[in-house]
Structures are given as structure tokens and as C-alpha cells.
């Protein structure tokens, strides 16, 4: 293992937090989706790192599945964003508050 485990964990934590802040702070739906992708990739990075650390292949396989799932998720999400844009002519998250109590 070239990179120490600590560095890897710190990097993935930073990535995760960046994604999280992106999800929470942005009002644009597409930016939120990007934030989610970043968080997912942070998790993926941890899994790959852990897999290398313990010399076990399971983590890497899981990351492959994760990538496949993510691509499916992104295609559905973007389709929905297009649909929402057509409905309200906006991608601002504040306009979609029909579920309020």
C-alpha cells in the first residue's frame, strides 16, 4: 500500500463533507445531484482503500457495483430533473415544497 490508510480516510472524509455541504447549501437540483455523486464517490474511495489495506477483493467488487448503480441513478435523476423543469419551469429546490405540512 503506497498511501497510508490515514491519508486516504482524511481525503474521503473531506470529499464526503464537501459533497454534503454541496447537497445542503445549493438550491439548484443539478448541483445537489452532483453533491450526491461526490458523497458516493467518497464512500467508494474508502471501500477501495479498505480493500487494498486488508488485501481482500470484496471492496473493489462492491465499488464496481456502486458505479453501475450510480450511473443508473444519475440517468433516472437527470430524467426527473428534466421532467420537473418542464412542470414548473424551474430547477430551484425551493419551488418544490408541495409536501409541506
Amino acid at each position, binding site marked *: 500500500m503506497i498511501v497510508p490508510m490515514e491519508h486516504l480516510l482524511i481525503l474521503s472524509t473531506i470529499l464526503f463533507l464537501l459533497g454534503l455541504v454541496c447537497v445542503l447549501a445549493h438550491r439548484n437540483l443539478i448541483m445537489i445531484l452532483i453533491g450526491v455523486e461526490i458523497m458516493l464517490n467518497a464512500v467508494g474511495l474508502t471501500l477501495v482503500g479498505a480493500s487494498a489495506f486488508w488485501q481482500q477483493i470484496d471492496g473493489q467488487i462492491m465499488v464496481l457495483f456502486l458505479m453501475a448503480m450510480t450511473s443508473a441513478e444519475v440517468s433516472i435523476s437527470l430524467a426527473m430533473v428534466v421532467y420537473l423543469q418542464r412542470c414548473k419551469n424551474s430547477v430551484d429546490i*425551493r419551488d418544490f415544497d408541495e409536501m409541506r405540512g
Partner: protein
Amino acid sequence: MILLLTLTLLLPLLGGIINACFGNHLPKPMPVIVANGAVIGSFLACLGCLSSASGDGLRVTLFTWLSSGSFQADVGLLLDPLAAIMALMVTGVASLIHLYAAGYMQDDSDQTRFFALLNLFVFAMLTIVLADNLLLMFLGWEGVGFCSYGLIGFWYRNTENAAAGRKAFIVTRIGDLFFTVGLLWLFALFGTIGIEAINGQVAGLDPTTITIISLLLLGGACGKSAQLPLMTWLPDAMAGPTPVSALIHAATMVTAGVYLLCRMFPLVSLSPIAMGVIALVGVLTALYAATCALAQREIKRVLAYSTMSQVGYMFLAVGVGSVSAAMFHLLTHAFFKSLLFMAAGCVINLAGHENDIYLMGGMRQRSKLVAGLFMVGLLCLAGAPLTGGFFSKDLILATAFAKGDLFHQAIYVIGIVTAGITSLYSFRLGYLVFAGDFRGEELPDDLPGLMKWPLLPLALFGLFGGLLNLPHLFGGYSWLSGWLNTDTDVLHLSLNSEYLLSGTAVGVFVFGWLIAHLRYRKFVRRESGLISAFLLAGWQFDAFYDRLLIRPFRGLCRFCWQGVEVGLVDGLIEGFARTCISWGQALRKMTNGQISNYLQGFIWGLLLIMGWFLLRAVA
């Protein structure tokens, strides 16, 4: 005989049921004919079985009503001399009043209900009279109360009438409570509720117990008979139709209390205290009601107070130990008072449905016959010499006098003063109604014949009712006392004092007449002073009871309603609900539909869980 006795009781019930169930489907005069036929049939049946009533009497047990352990109540009839004379009076007077009512009510659209209730009343009254046990008597007792309630409020569309009916029902119910307690106590003591069985066993009883039970019975009697202190309902009861006032509130139901005391006389007479209280209640009521009658303006209220006063005399008679004097006065009073009420109904019709005697006057010219009949009734009421009322009232007062001790002397004095007042208000009524010229608006109204002719026999009975129990002094031989097996009631006063007593009675009668003659012969509109306003309002008893009982009760009810129900119960439940609602409202604000907010919640939760695990790891 047994069949006749059963018919006496059941015919009015049958008539009442027919009218109540099918009356509205029968062609027009049929309900009236059914009702009249039932009561007249009952009268004839009663007349038929009269001969078997003497001595021990006639007994019929129709069926066992209730039976539980040692408790047994039969529907059993007992026709002994006391019951026979009472039943004959009830059915006879009721027959004449039914005939009169047929004329009085001929234009009323609710005839069927009226006659159904009137027939049921006669049935209930006969149940009281003929019952051989106290429970059956109580059934009739409640029955007359119910029918009285229904008939006082007969024209219930006027709220005042309905309220008067309710008042009568509630006030008599207070008395009924005493009666019930007495009844149950007697059952607890003797294990039986048969009237004869109880009367046969009382001799060995503890005097205090007898006194208390007698006073309880007196309480019941006071409620029904409108005696002090439960008398406020009777004047208001005049809201009912006139035949009802004549039948229920003059001749029969209000005398039920006297009848009860006569029935239980062997028990009551054992307690000198109870007897004294009965006499005192009677004479005070007589005085109270007579003074009230002096100031009344409505013709029927004058008669209502006079009824109360006369029933007071009957109580006095029982209290001084003379059942035959009580029954004698009960009979003559039933005749002349129902006569007076029915004639008053005629007068009201002739005056164009005017009740106020200040607006009458000159009614003599309207109908000589009605005026004559009314005056006959008034003479009997005032105790004019040789009328029925004279002899019966005289007998009561003489019996009180003959007791001799100071208490009874005082009662005699109050009684004789009351007799003078009675004469005064009777003639006041007569002068105001019949003398002078008509003071109201001209509204001539014709009388149907049925409203006049039934009055004639009553006038005759009233005038010659004295023959029933003519004292030896006047050449009679006290038939009624003999019939009732109460020969001890026949007075043995010296000839001189008897003449003196009769003379006094005549004296107060003439005295009352003279004052009325001087004061009311010519109608003068007087300013009503304080005293007459006080008397008009019945000594303010209504206001007094209002302060003493009704307002505190209302206050209690308001506390239970506003305090307990609205404040406590509703407050608790509504407060709980309100808390839940406000919590809900507060929590609602959290779900504002903004996804970032929800995600924030996730994050905080995540941090919390992670913090928890960290703490665990450190510890």
C-alpha cells in the same frame, strides 16, 4: 255484587283506553258519549253494590299484582262504608261534571284527549278509594297526580298552563315522598301492606314510631290536598279547564288526603301529637287560604283558595278525631264546590271569557238561573243556616270545642274566625260578580244547555246535604255517623252549649255578610294597598319558596353545569385536546417541504448516533 264492584272500577278505565287509543278515529260525538257512558255506568254500578257495603264490607281480589318473598300486593278492592260513600260521591259528581264538560268542551278540537284523561282520572281516584292495600292506593295516588298534571296543562300551547301543571306535579311529589316512606316503614314493621291488616295490628306499636309514621302520612296528605306548607300549587292549577277544576281540584283529588287520613285513622288516632299537628295544619291552612281568598281578583282563584280553606276544615275534623265530621264536610263540600266551579265556568262564558271579577258585575241580568245556582253554592260555602255547609262546618267546630282543653279551644276560635272570613269573601264574590252593572266589554255568549242542567242536582245536594248527618239538635239522627260505624263521633254536649255554638256560627255568618254588604254592594275601584297585595300573592309564599328553595337549587344546578360539567369535565378534555393541537401545530412547522431541511435533520441524527458511539468507545 262482585261484578258490579269490578265494573265500578274498570268502566272508567275502559272508557279512557277506548278514547285514548281509538278516540280520534271515532265519529264526532262518540268520544264524549263513550266517556260519559263509562262514568255514568260506573256510578250506576256503584249504586248497585251499595247495599253490600254495610258492616264489614265487600271484598274482591282481582289478581295478585306483585309477589316476592313475604311481600304480596293484590289488586284487591274493599267496599266498606267509608269507601262506599266516597266512591258514590266520586262517581256521582264525576258523572255530572262529565255531562257539563260535554257542553263546556264542545268546540274544543282536543276533546278526545280531554275525555280520555278525565276518565283515567276517575279510574285512578276510584283506585285510591277502593284499594284494600296501601300500594294499590299509592298507584291510584300517582295516577290522579299524573292526570291532574295532564289536565292542568291541557291547553299546553300556552307556556304558563304547562308550567302550572309542572308545578302541581312537582309540589305534590314532595308529599308523595313522605307517603312512600311511611308506606315502606309500615311494611317493614308489619310485613303486610293491607290497610285492614295494618289498622288491626297498630295497638302494640311504640308511640314514637306511630307519631312519626302518622306525620309521614300527613305529609303525603298535605301534598295532595294542598295544605300548609305544600299548598302553593292549587291556585295555579286553575289554569286548567273549568270542569277539571271542579272535578279534580275541588271535589275529588284534593280530598284524597283527607280520605287517606280517614282510612288510616286507627293508626293516626293513636298518636295525640300527630292528631294535634293534623288539627293545627288544618286550621292554619283554613285561616291562611280564607285570608288569601279575600283579595283575589280571578273568580277561579277565589274558589281555589276557598277549596284549600275548606279542605283545611276537613283536616281539622280528622285532627279532632271525628272521621264522620270530616267525611260529612267532604261530601257537602264536594257538592257545593263543584257546583260553584261549574257555575263560575258559566259566568266566565257569559262575561265573554273574562276571569277578573272586577270586570264583571251585573251578571244577574245575564242569566237568572246561573246566578241563582251560584248563590246557592256561595250560601253553602259561607255556611248559611240550614244549608249543607252550615251543618258540616258546625259539626267540625263543635267537635273541636267539645274537646274542652286550651289547645282545642284556641283551634275552635281560629276556626270560627275563619268561618266569618269565609262568609265575608263568599259574599264579596257574590256582590262583585252579580250586583250592579256589567263593567266589562259587551260580549254576549250563549250557554249550551248541558252547562246548566247538571248544576241543578248539585245545588239540591248542596242545599240539603245537611240531611245526611243532621244532628239530634235539629231533629236528625246522624245517619252518616251511624253508617260509618263511628257513633262515638256523635256529640254529647249540653243543649245550651249546642245552641250557643250554632248561634255563634250563625252570628259570624251574618257578620261576614254585613261587612261584605257594606263594602262591596256598590263597586268602588280601590287602590290596592300593601295588605291586599300581600294577600293577593298568597302571603308571598311563592316568592318565599322561590328564595328558600328554587334559587339555591338553581344556583346548585348552575354550579353543576357551569362549574363541574363545563369547567371541570369539559375543561379537562378540551384542555388535553387543545394541548395536542398546539403541539401538532408546532411540529407541523418542521415539515416545510424543503428537502434541505429534512436532510439537515438526517445529518443531526447521524451526528447524534456517531457521538453516541464515540462516547461508548471512549468510556
